[in-house]
């Protein structure tokens, strides 16, 4: 059974997704437990995989038992295994959360929503687990198609935001496909390990340079790195709350995973660093993205839009860490992926909860929210601390590693950017917390008595528990960050660093 865990993790959500419409035809209520069951099985097998990888090293799983360059294989090393666990855990949390939120926002589409939800999770898992360049493209498209349609069922402006995402996303995926074609034309192979073996002889060719640049451009669009981020803020703002809580933490992180995979596995780090020195370009883009995203986030009045710009900024951190291309920088980048998945998950879940209670997300309406929803807002504060980088949350440790990496690379400007962006984060989160905690509602003189009693009006339990679990996740990731690094992330770093 444990030998088959790699395929179970993909096939269970896929098969369950096929059956979901039939089940919904019989009874709508069955869909929710059905989705929970499938993602739970998937999550359990991802933990089994992580354990196996930690104990025995890299797993190779051949599909159809064909030898690797001819058939398709799964290659699961420490980075994949970590990503699988993150994806399944976050999507399980969001699935639990989605029940009430979806009933409120899109009541007549529950069955199809859950079908697409499972397919999207399948897409993410398929991208991460696969060891074949073309197979990654196929699953990237599954995840993207599911994402387009899930975003389009949001509020009034959602279809237009989604259409812009379709255009940008298709350009990104097409660039990726094109660069796979370029690589195929000079290596004749699609298997990542095989391509990585063949490429070093070809490092001087134009074809490989073009392929690398277009692959980075394509992944960059999917990842919403700074100059190509235009689709992300609108898409995540107008999507249904549960969808933005699923996509904002995961889609961009899966693309970030792909960028790490392409930079350090498909191409050797020496090529990226020495031959064309693309890495410093990536970290500069990341640094500019951090500043631009944070500044735009300050200007927003809508909480979801503010968080969406914050996604752009945080992706900038990850790109910066990847571009630094040294031990600390990459450690920080991978740790930041873990941290961001939980933090953005937590914050978007809280935003969804506020939408559920207040019917909107305008920051000026948040008065007295700390008294109305104390548990939710506590989780929000923990998430905000993590983004700012206050210990013991995980954000502190990932930023620490990024700063250490910048110092090691002698890039003092990046140190400045990282510290300055923390201040910017303080500004925009403090504004929310200040309105919610300290600004009193104007006393209502028409009523008797000077004080208005504030009734605790928390979100339903199925929403509150996921919010608390993600907040707990942020704290645990912070407290155990050294263990995570020494057990998992240490093995991700290429030997040459």
């Amino acid at each position, binding site marked *: 059974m444990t030998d088959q865990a790699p395929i179970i993790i993909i096939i269970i959500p896929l098969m369950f997704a096929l059956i979901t419409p039939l089940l919904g035809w019989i009874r709508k209520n069955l869909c929710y437990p059905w989705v929970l069951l499938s993602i739970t099985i998937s999550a359990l097998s991802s933990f089994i995989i992580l354990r196996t990888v930690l104990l025995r090293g890299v797993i190779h799983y051949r599909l159809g038992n064909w030898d690797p360059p001819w058939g398709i294989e799964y290659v699961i090393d420490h980075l994949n295994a970590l990503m699988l666990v993150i994806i399944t855990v976050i999507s399980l949390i969001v699935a639990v959360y989605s029940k009430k939120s979806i009933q409120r926002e899109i009541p007549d589409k529950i069955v199809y929503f859950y079908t697409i939800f499972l397919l999207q999770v399948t897409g993410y898992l398929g991208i991460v687990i696969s060891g074949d360049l*073309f197979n990654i*493209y*196929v699953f990237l*498209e599954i995840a993207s*198609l599911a994402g*387009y*349609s899930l975003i*389009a069922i949001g509020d*009034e*402006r959602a*279809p*237009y935001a*989604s*259409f812009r995402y*379709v*255009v940008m996303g*298709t*350009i990104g995926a*097409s660039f990726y*496909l*094109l660069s796979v*074609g370029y690589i*195929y*034309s000079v290596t004749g192979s*699609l298997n990542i390990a095989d391509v990585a073996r063949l490429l070093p002889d070809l490092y001087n060719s134009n074809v490989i340079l073009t392929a690398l640049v277009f692959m980075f451009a394509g992944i960059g669009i999917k990842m919403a790195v700074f100059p190509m981020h235009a689709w992300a803020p609108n898409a995540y703002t107008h999507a249904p709350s549960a969808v933005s809580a699923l996509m904002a933490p995961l889609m961009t992180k899966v693309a970030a995973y792909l960028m790490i995979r392409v930079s350090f596995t498909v191409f050797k780090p020496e090529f990226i660093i020495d031959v064309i020195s693309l890495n410093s370009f990536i970290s500069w883009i990341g640094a500019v993205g951090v500043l631009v995203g944070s500044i735009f986030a300050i200007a927003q009045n809508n909480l979801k839009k503010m968080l969406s710009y914050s996604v752009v900024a945080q992706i900038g951190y990850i790109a910066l860490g990847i571009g630094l291309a040294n031990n600390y920088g990459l450690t920080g980048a991978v740790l930041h992926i873990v941290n961001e998945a939980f933090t953005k998950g937590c914050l978007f879940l809280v935003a969804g909860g506020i939408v559920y209670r207040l019917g909107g997300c305008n920051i000026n309406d948040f008065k007295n929210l700390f008294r109305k929803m104390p548990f939710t807002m506590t989780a929000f504060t923990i998430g905000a601390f993590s983004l700012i980088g206050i210990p013991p949350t995980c954000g502190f440790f990932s930023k620490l590693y990024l700063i250490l990496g910048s110092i090691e690379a002698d890039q003092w400007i990046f140190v400045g950017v990282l510290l300055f962006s923390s201040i910017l984060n303080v500004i925009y989160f403090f504004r929310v917390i200040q309105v919610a905690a300290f600004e009193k509602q104007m006393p209502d003189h028409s009523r008797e008595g000077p004080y208005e009693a504030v009734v605790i009006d928390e979100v339903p339990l199925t929403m509150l528990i996921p919010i608390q679990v993600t907040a707990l996740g942020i704290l645990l990731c912070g407290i155990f960050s050294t263990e995570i690094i020494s057990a998992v992330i240490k093995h991700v770093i290429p030997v040459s660093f």
Partner: protein
Amino acid sequence: MIDFIIERYNFWIYIILMMIGLYAMITKRNLVKKVIGMNIFQTAIILFYISLASKRGGTLPILEHAHGEENLTVDVSNYINPLPHVLMLTAIVVMVATLGVALAILILIYRKYGTLEEDEILKKMQ
């Protein structure tokens, strides 16, 4: 020189096609034209892959009268490379699926705003 051009001009034509599609995607103000540009772009990529598969003197990758023959020896250079064709079968399906979803989103947009011109939609959103 002439050989060099003859060996590559098909790639260049596909790249020009791709760029026509890309230009339509990012410049046209009508959303349907954007979708058509998207299709031109993806079709050009498919043509690019298919041209990678060709071999001078090769024929279709189907063996004739192959069943039941013992010790069949097949000369690789007689058959064109079948792998890009397979990849493109998948890519065509992906392209059609993207087109379908994009058009469905356009239907939603048309119902909401009554138009598919980007300028008018942006004006109505204000």
